[in-house]
């Protein structure tokens, strides 16, 4: 992401060819090992009956009545603080709003969700406002005016996520307050209006940040079991618990495709194409974003259709059933792409947050922060980038393998996995290639 006004001013160096090559070889190796030597019966995504409980003190704290309200209030306070800079701050490079929105919030949502699960449901100020309004009117927040249509699924969230990545990666003047303000105003109106019509579950269908946090949060090592108890779990079990729903495939493809576009759009070749084109840059950017997401989607549909045919699965089931296996690949790529931005630009944003009105204030005591490298050497960054991409690939491959065993009869299970492995190897190689070349 390169926004005007200096956000993301520094970008990572292209990774060395040796690192990209090592990652590619590893990804290939892991794929074949997975096909040949992993287990022969589907075993992920179980009911966690034997899971180890978290310490009693933690469980008690989480079960207390105060717990959800602590986080709701934290979400409200943070949102209110964010609005100070957004509404009353001057529209200058030292306003923390763009950094707080794109870096601390959007990128920061990934590590938070990876560690603690679906955090945005608990923090969302819009959910809290809806809850409070319902309490004041003595209405049940779960009830709306209408029932949600059966085919709704993740489609509203897909639209919201596309709107967000377009804002983040393409929109002109995207780091300025009016643009961020208008986008957020539309988001708030659609979220709250939908919640009035369909009840609080609208947020789970439509809030792009909540759906994103829910998806990534499935990889968290802790979860609340069906009986309400907090347990440790295998991240793979969490991810395998994601069930097909309308729009799910497009949603996961959006995550991977938009990040790949962000990389690709940085390549000098693409810059030249955009600047030589007769149409304005945002038009080219939109076309590029749609094209990359479209390619990722086409590859996914083709591979899963072929896998379904070769593996003799129930027709039409493979695309949705395997969508969960793309999430770790997308998350690995997001981390590889954004973690230095989060570390470095995040520090700058925290410093700026002390003075959202640009009056020389130091409300949080962080105004004097200078950006520290925090161990981000070029070699270290490249190593981490390749490592997280390969880890994502490994998790995706294992998840796809496990699901294939459930989808395909034993006789065709190996054959059916080949297109899936090829797809994942392609995603991973493209990811590495983009880090190397773009």
């Amino acid at each position, binding site marked *: 992401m390169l926004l005007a006004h200096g956000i993301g001013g520094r970008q990572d160096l292209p990774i060395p060819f040796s690192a990209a090559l090592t990652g590619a070889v590893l990804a290939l190796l892991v794929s074949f090992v997975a096909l040949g030597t992993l287990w022969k019966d589907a075993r992920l995504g179980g009911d966690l009956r034997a899971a180890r409980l978290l310490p009693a003190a933690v469980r008690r704290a989480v079960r207390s009545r105060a717990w959800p309200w602590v986080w709701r209030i934290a979400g409200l306070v943070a949102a209110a603080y964010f609005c100070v800079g957004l509404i009353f701050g001057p529209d200058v490079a030292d306003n923390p709003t763009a950094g707080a929105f794109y870096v601390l919030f959007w990128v920061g949502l990934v590590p938070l969700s990876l560690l603690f699960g679906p955090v945005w449901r608990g923090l969302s100020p819009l959910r809290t406002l809806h809850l409070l309004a319902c309490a004041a009117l003595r209405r049940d927040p779960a009830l709306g005016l209408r029932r949600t249509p059966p085919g709704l699924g993740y489609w509203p969230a897909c639209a919201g996520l596309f709107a967000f990545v377009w804002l983040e990666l393409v929109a002109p003047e995207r780091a300025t307050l009016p643009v961020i303000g208008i986008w957020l105003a539309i988001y708030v109106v659609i979220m709250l209006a939908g919640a009035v019509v369909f009840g609080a579950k609208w947020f789970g269908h439509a809030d792009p940040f909540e759906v994103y946090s829910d998806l990534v949060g499935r990889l968290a090592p802790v979860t609340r079991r069906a009986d309400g108890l907090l347990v440790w779990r295998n991240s793979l079990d969490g991810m395998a618990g994601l069930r097909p729903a309308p729009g799910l495939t497009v949603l996961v493809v959006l995550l991977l495709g938009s990040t790949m576009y962000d990389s690709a759009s940085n390549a000098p070749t693409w810059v030249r194409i955009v600047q030589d084109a007769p149409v304005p840059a945002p038009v080219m950017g939109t076309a590029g974003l749609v094209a990359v997401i479209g390619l990722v989607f086409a590859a996914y549909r083709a591979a899963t259709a072929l896998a379904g045919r070769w593996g003799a699965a129930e027709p039409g089931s493979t695309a949705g059933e395997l969508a969960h296996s793309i999430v770790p690949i997308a998350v690995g790529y997001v981390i590889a792409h954004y973690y230095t931005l989060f570390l470095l630009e995040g520090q700058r944003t925290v410093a700026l947050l002390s003075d959202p009105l640009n009056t020389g204030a130091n409300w949080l005591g962080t105004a004097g922060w200078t950006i520290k490298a925090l161990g981000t050497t*070029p070699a270290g960054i490249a190593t981490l980038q390749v490592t997280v991409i390969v880890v994502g690939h490994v998790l995706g491959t294992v998840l796809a393998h496990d699901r294939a065993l459930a989808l395909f009869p034993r006789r065709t299970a190996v054959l059916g996995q080949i297109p899936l492995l090829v797809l994942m190897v392609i995603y991973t190689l493209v990811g590495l290639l983009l880090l190397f070349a773009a």
Partner: protein
Amino acid sequence: MRHAPARIRRPLATFLLGAALVMATSACGGSSTPASADAPPKDITVTIAGGKVTPEPGRIEVTKGQTVRIKVTSDVADEAHVHGYDKEASLQPGTPASIEFVADETGLFEVETHETELQLFQLVVR
């Protein structure tokens, strides 16, 4: 909780070994290019005319610690900006403006104009 079955452990071990390999290879790549302050200053000349950048935008590599001297000539009034280093120069039509600084941070930095929103080049500091 299902523990990682023994069958995952072997591939995982293979993978960790590989990760160590990545670390080793990229570390070698890093140490072979020492920061050099004695390299001569890097002169970069860019012309903007009719919304076109000459030479075409590409990547220009410098060594960490090297001095970078950028000369920009534009046919319209504008502002040139080096991202990350946050160096700026205001451009008057037809008059070359220069930006000079020591590239002391590694990374990739875009150099662009503000009004016409053109990318001039990407500065790669290793």
